[in-house]
């Protein structure tokens, strides 16, 4: 496994191979510069994940109620009927 894959595997973010250094230890190896970071804050990371999830749900919602064989209003009325039949009153 190469360095970049390993850096990502152990949890680094923004892992990048930047440039050759020109200093090679053997004819079969190259000197190389690498950069990576530890994510700035776990809270920020979680919020980002939550944001991603919310936008995925939004996409799903829009797709479901999009104008198709049935119009948007009919779909909403079916959903309302189904949720009342399921005993959902909230």
């Amino acid at each position, binding site marked *: 496994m190469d360095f970049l894959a390993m850096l990502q595997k152990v949890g680094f973010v923004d892992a990048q191979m930047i440039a050759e250094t020109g200093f090679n230890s053997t004819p079969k190896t190259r*000197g190389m510069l690498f950069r990576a970071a530890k994510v700035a804050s776990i809270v920020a990371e979680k919020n980002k994940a939550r944001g991603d999830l919310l936008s995925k749900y939004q996409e799903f919602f829009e797709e479901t109620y999009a104008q198709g064989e049935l119009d948007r209003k009919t779909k909403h009325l079916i959903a309302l009927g189904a949720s009342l039949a399921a005993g959902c009153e909230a």
Partner: protein
Amino acid sequence: MDSQISIDDLNKIEAGIRQKYSEVARSPEGQFQYPTGRKGLKTLNYDKALIAKLPDAVASSYCGVGNPFSLGKINEGEKVLDIGCGAGVDTILAAMMVGPNGLAVGVDIVPEMIARAESNLKMTGMENVSFQTTSGENLPFADDIFDVVISNGVINLIVDKEAALAEIRRVLKPGGRLMMADQIAVASVQKDIQGRVASWFQ
């Protein structure tokens, strides 16, 4: 890491590396296929003003494979860890960058290298530097304490690279940066173990 290498072979490789670097600790001259010492530092475009401050005996022990400081700025007051610091030239340069309110720590698995680093440090008279003999796979530091980890031509020599990288990430603060120079294989490596041990660190 190729799976056909046995633990026994890995131990041989590690012993070979320790032997080589205990010799490098005396002088890197003639031990590498690239420029070492002050010439190496100049070729790799290290900060001229900083390398001018290094005593000759300190600069002559440099044998890095790249300039990790070219990857980003190190700020005043930061804490820097140098993994596989060798004779400590990068550690001492990092200490100059962070200044008296910052700290630079160098670790290396080879005791002779740490001894050379300590004697180099004495020649500079700097106080914001410390060195420790330890394995990169098991760092004696708490979580989240370093702003920057630097490393120069070392991770490729570590037997369990993944463990070493995980340890680096553990001791970095959130938002901390890893800046490293290293050797990567560009052709198929030696498959027979004799050749592998012999060429691992050339």
